[in-house]
């Protein structure tokens, strides 16, 4: 089952935001969605999640995503929005349990399978020890992992996460990326938008560069994240190094006034 996007156009209040997007995702890979502010990363993710209307084709396996009812789409694709909202002081376990909503019938108690999936999501995000704490009392990094676990518990083949690592300290950023890699290793496909190029270079199998609503480049980080590409898309220069863990990329300065 692959996610295939072809010829996707999105306009918000009449202004074209995305034009001619074509991309694909395979099970087992973590794909980073990169690009400066306003390039259309969040809009592309919202379009995939069915939250803004888009023209073009979006298919997951044999299913046409745009033709699916919201509940059916929610069983195929989980979406983690950028803004983290936890409305009431619900326990961590109950927040993660909300991810089971697409699979549950109204008024039916959680099944043993629901409980097991929630337990696995808690373990995967390394928050099992927090399960009974009110989610609102946790730190920002912990809340980010709780909400990611919520999306994991949705048990979908595809996960789309909008800047899940933003606002986290370096250790929590690495923990987040490791968790996404584990999800991919389980056979899911993960699309993650990132602002941190160092993280993207090191933890993504492939990156997709957006610029002004179009895909400017796509491929493995080593191939795509070149000095020319970074200068063109972000207007920055960077220091490049390499070790056994992959590419090390550190922005060093501006090449042009943005």
């Amino acid at each position, binding site marked *: 089952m692959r996610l295939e996007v072809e010829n996707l156009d999105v306009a918000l209040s009449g202004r074209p935001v995305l034009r001619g997007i074509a991309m694909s995702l395979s099970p087992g890979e973590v794909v980073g969605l990169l690009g400066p502010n306003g390039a259309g990363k969040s809009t592309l993710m919202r379009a995939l999640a069915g939250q803004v209307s888009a023209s073009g084709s979006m298919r997951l396996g044999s299913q046409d995503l745009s033709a699916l009812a919201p509940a059916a789409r929610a069983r195929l694709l989980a979406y983690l929005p950028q803004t983290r*909202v936890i409305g009431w002081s619900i326990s961590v376990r109950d927040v993660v349990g909300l991810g089971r909503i697409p699979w549950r019938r*109204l008024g039916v108690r959680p099944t043993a399978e629901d409980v097991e999936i929630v337990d696995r999501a808690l373990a995967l995000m390394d928050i099992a020890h927090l399960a009974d704490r009110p989610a609102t009392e946790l730190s920002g990094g912990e809340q980010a992992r709780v909400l990611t676990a919520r999306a994991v518990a949705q048990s979908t083949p595809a996960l789309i996460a909008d800047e899940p690592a933003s606002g986290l300290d370096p250790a929590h950023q690495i923990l987040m990326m490791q968790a996404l890699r584990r999800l991919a290793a389980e056979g899911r496909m993960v699309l993650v938008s990132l602002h941190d190029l160092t993280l993207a270079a090191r933890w993504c199998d492939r990156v997709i560069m957006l610029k002004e609503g179009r895909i400017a480049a796509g491929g493995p980080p080593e191939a795509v994240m070149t000095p020319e590409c970074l200068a063109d898309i972000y207007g920055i220069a960077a220091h490049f190094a390499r070790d056994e863990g992959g590419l090390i990329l550190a922005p060093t300065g501006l090449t042009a006034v943005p």
Partner: protein
Amino acid sequence: MRPVVLNAVLCLLMLALFLASLAVGPAELGISESVRGLLAGGGEAAAIIMREIRLPRALLGLGIGFTLGISGAVLQGFLRNPLAEPGIVGVSAMAAFGAVLVFYSGLAGSTLYALPAGALIGALIAVLLLLALTARSGSTLTLILAGVALSSLSAALTSLVLNLSPNPFASYEIIFWLLGSLKDRSIEHVWLALPLTLAGWLLIALSARAIDALSLGEETAASLGIDMRRARLFIVLGTALGVGAATAVAGTIGFVGLVVPHLVRPLTNRLPSRLLLPAGFAGAALLLAADVAVRLILPAGELNVGVLTALIGAPFFLWLVIRSRREVF
């Protein structure tokens, strides 16, 4: 507390207060006399008092209290705002205005159904306006602002009617009705409110999943497969049917929907859907208790239950605002 235990306790409390409401009144009836009057029937005074005065009053207290409690709980969950209550979306105020118009036009005296019909039409207009105002965006902020605007508008129109009212008796009647009371209602009022109330409860119950998902924000709720337009329609319509019917037969009874979810929430796991049933039971218990209290405080007088709930509820509301400010700063 486990949900089953909590619901059982609150349900028993509600039933106890229901019986208390049946037992209290100016006519000094013994327990055996009351039970006989309720069950045996016939033309004797006890039967008439029990069946035509106290039973409708207790039934309305239960039904309206349940409606106000569950409506407050669903609106707080839906708007993710602990200060929300049926009054905030403007439905109560529009229903009251509809009833006031009926008073003013003099139709109120013509048939028993004129006044409730006026209130219901007011509530329905409020719903249609709310849905029209919020049709373009699913944002809860729009709904709150629309509700505030609608409340102010209906308050202004109600004042206008009072101002134009030709004789002081009409104004007095209107004001008295606006204060909210369960006194001197008949079993016809119960039959009138019942179907609408039940429909409202059903629509609210069907929104349980939506308000849970909304705890994590509108984007996440939509990504969990919740149809936001449908959820909004069900919740607004369900609240309007229930609160409209309640206002139609009992006038405005405020603050029950605000206070009850706060009292019950700490006893639940705080998932909005788990609050609905306990809030309904607790709302019924609270209104029945208040209605018993007004009969005991001033047995001969005319203290309206709406006045008592407002006297208790408004300071509570203020305390909530102060507390929530403290959490922010």
